[in-house]
């Protein structure tokens, strides 16, 4: 066993003990389903901001984005402005308004807004489907990391991830996950901030590394992607974040509207640091190890072979904690969809709080195991799976969420139309563009279809209303 493995086990053991302690604390404080899903609406701005950042920073960032920078260089950094625009939209048009409404889950809000149980069930189903794809990416990243460090078979790594995340998710719900997220983001930021100077030093400076990368492939320090491709990626991430159900659930746990805005500002701060570090890590790892077999390995190879063993261990724990945080957030959102929106409304509307809480915990267990089968098959690199998921979320969710919160009118038909139109447009375009060269991203088609369906259904409804009103007058 090498120095990294020993240090990693020690750091990970300390971290897991802290996580379980927080989970136990959350369990003691959780008395009802609402308490489980919203932490009694008690989270402040700093913990809230860290939670928002931790929820977004996942394997997609620390494995996928590092890998993307490794493979394609600087230009992927232009996706971040899209992410931040998404946060701005969220801070102005979504977060505070949603917090004011005070719904426990996002489908619950949509059902109340459009006066329709069909909207609730459909949105819950779509959320569960889309987030299962994201879970696949998280499990796959975890498998790659453990395989690189310990030579462990990915299925065991995924099993460990599922069990450890399950414990603190099923115990304490949003309260414990919020405090664990706060701890995680501190570890992620410290791990990243300490790693970059070490990498820079080993290659003899950023400008030397830049020149070497230019010699490997000029596009690494120039434009790998063209403007249209970057716009597509930015839109996928930005629109998905602006309407991301698992981020919105976090707004519900915050004290009030002002706390939500403040927390989004804090979240920006964390993300700016993380985004810059991740860019430099990807580029410097490429300079130090120019020919890795897979870009997904860049993070783990960097931690294992480049960083000093203690910092490498801290980075690996940060990475695993980010994966756990993301898995936890996804499980909370999807299980809420099952227990609160599908079971609690459609299957057994008279179910007690206790029964719904049990259903919630059972669904967490089932959904944490389901994606392992798919993750073991490694369909694509981690970041591509994340991009795919953001495309779907943006396509079916952005229009009904943002228009629903900020405009009057719109019926259940327009909401259902927007969701079905968005997902159909995105899916069909993805299938078509897999075989044809195109500069139009699936998310652009998805959003356009969703908006058109929403407006078309709204216009039809208005006409129907006018005809009915005229009939009634007659």
């Amino acid at each position: 066993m090498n120095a990294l493995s020993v240090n990693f086990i020690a750091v990970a053991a300390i971290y897991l003990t802290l996580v379980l302690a927080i989970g136990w604390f959350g369990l003691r404080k959780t008395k009802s389903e609402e308490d489980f899903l919203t932490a009694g609406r008690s989270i402040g701005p700093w913990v809230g901001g860290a939670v928002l950042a931790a929820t977004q920073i996942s394997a997609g960032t620390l494995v996928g984005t590092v890998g993307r920078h490794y493979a394609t260089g600087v230009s992927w950094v232009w996706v971040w402005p899209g992410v931040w625009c998404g946060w701005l939209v969220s801070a102005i048009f979504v977060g505070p308004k949603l917090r004011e409404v005070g719904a426990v889950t996002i489908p619950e809000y949509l059902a109340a807004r459009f006066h329709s149980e069909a909207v609730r069930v459909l949105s819950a189903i779509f959320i569960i489907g889309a987030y299962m794809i994201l879970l696949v990416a998280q499990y796959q990243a975890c498998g790659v990391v453990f395989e690189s460090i310990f030579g462990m078979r990915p299925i065991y790594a995924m099993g460990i991830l599922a069990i450890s995340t399950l414990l603190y998710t099923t115990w304490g719900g949003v309260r414990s996950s919020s405090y664990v997220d706060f701890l995680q983001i501190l570890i992620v930021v410290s791990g990243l901030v300490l790693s970059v100077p070490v990498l820079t030093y080993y290659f003899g400076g950023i400008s030397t590394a830049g020149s070497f990368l230019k010699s490997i492939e000029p596009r690494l320090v120039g434009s790998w992607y063209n403007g249209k491709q970057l716009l597509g990626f930015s839109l996928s991430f930005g629109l998905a974040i602006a309407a991301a159900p698992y981020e919105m659930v976090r707004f519900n746990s915050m004290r009030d509207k002002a706390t939500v805005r403040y927390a989004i500002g804090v979240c920006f701060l964390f993300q700016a640091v993380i985004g810059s570090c991740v860019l430099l890590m990807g580029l410097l790892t490429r300079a130090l190890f120019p020919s890795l077999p897979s870009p997904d390995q860049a993070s783990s190879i960097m931690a294992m072979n480049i960083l000093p063993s203690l910092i490498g261990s801290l980075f690996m724990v940060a990475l695993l904690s980010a994966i756990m945080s993301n898995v936890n957030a996804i499980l909370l959102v999807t299980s809420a969809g099952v227990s609160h929106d599908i079971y609690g409304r459609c299957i057994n509307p008279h179910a007690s709080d206790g029964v719904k809480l049990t259903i919630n915990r059972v669904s967490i267990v089932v959904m944490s195991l389901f994606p392992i089968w798919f993750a073991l098959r490694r369909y694509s690199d981690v970041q591509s799976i994340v991009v795919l998921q953001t495309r779907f979320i943006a396509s079916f969710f952005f229009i009904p969420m943002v228009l629903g919160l900020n405009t009057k009118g719109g019926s259940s038909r327009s909401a259902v139309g927007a969701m079905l139109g968005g997902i159909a447009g995105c899916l069909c375009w993805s299938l078509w563009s897999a075989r044809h060269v195109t500069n139009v991203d699936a998310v652009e088609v998805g959003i356009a279809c969703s908006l058109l369906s929403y407006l078309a259904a709204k216009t039809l409804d208005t006409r129907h209303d006018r005809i009915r009103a005229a009939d009634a007058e007659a």
Partner: protein
Amino acid sequence: MRRLRTSYARVWRWSQLLALVILELPAHAQTSVAHLAEYHAVVTFATQREARVTATLKPEAGVLIPSLLLARLRGDHLLEITASDAEGELPIRTSDLPGAVLLTLSAPSSKPGGLLQIHYLVTSNNPLERIPLPTVSLPMFPEQRTVSIEAKLPVGMTAVGEGFPVLIWHSPVQGETRLFDVPSVLAVKIRTDNTVTWRSRLMTASGLSTVGMFTFLGAGSLFWYLRTQMRQSGRS
């Protein structure tokens, strides 16, 4: 019960099919990739300012190494670059790129899948801290530690700090490591035995980052403690 099982199987089959369709979307066309089978580099320091490198590369059977890159590091000079295979010296052309030297082999004289050796001298006006190693665009075979890097120091010299990649020192003057992938540099700080102090051991990348980590944890804990104390005093 059988009906339930059949419908369960059908749902499972359909969910698998749907996942296959969705997850296959981002998959790019998989092309077969050629690999490097073995890589061995020996860096022999003559003095603090001069080192000779011999790198031996073996591609997988039937694969040809068309070119190699040597990083151009600040203050380093690359001299006497030659290439050879089992049959003797090979003609090689060097071209200067912005941050590297490109070594191009004449294809007819190098055998596909055969051993290739690159030799060169690295000199600097200051003590050498980074030695460029030749890299190729071929990845190594996954899950096999077939890359070995060896450093040999003259008697009376010693390595300070961990360096990159981390070498295991079998004796004060000979260190070695085995890796999964080929690094582009060997970063090692060497000093004469009588100039090594506790300060020079601490002022390394690993030493400073470890101190940084403990400072961060200490400052964070102190901040947390003081905040809790202030809140408690505010309440009382």
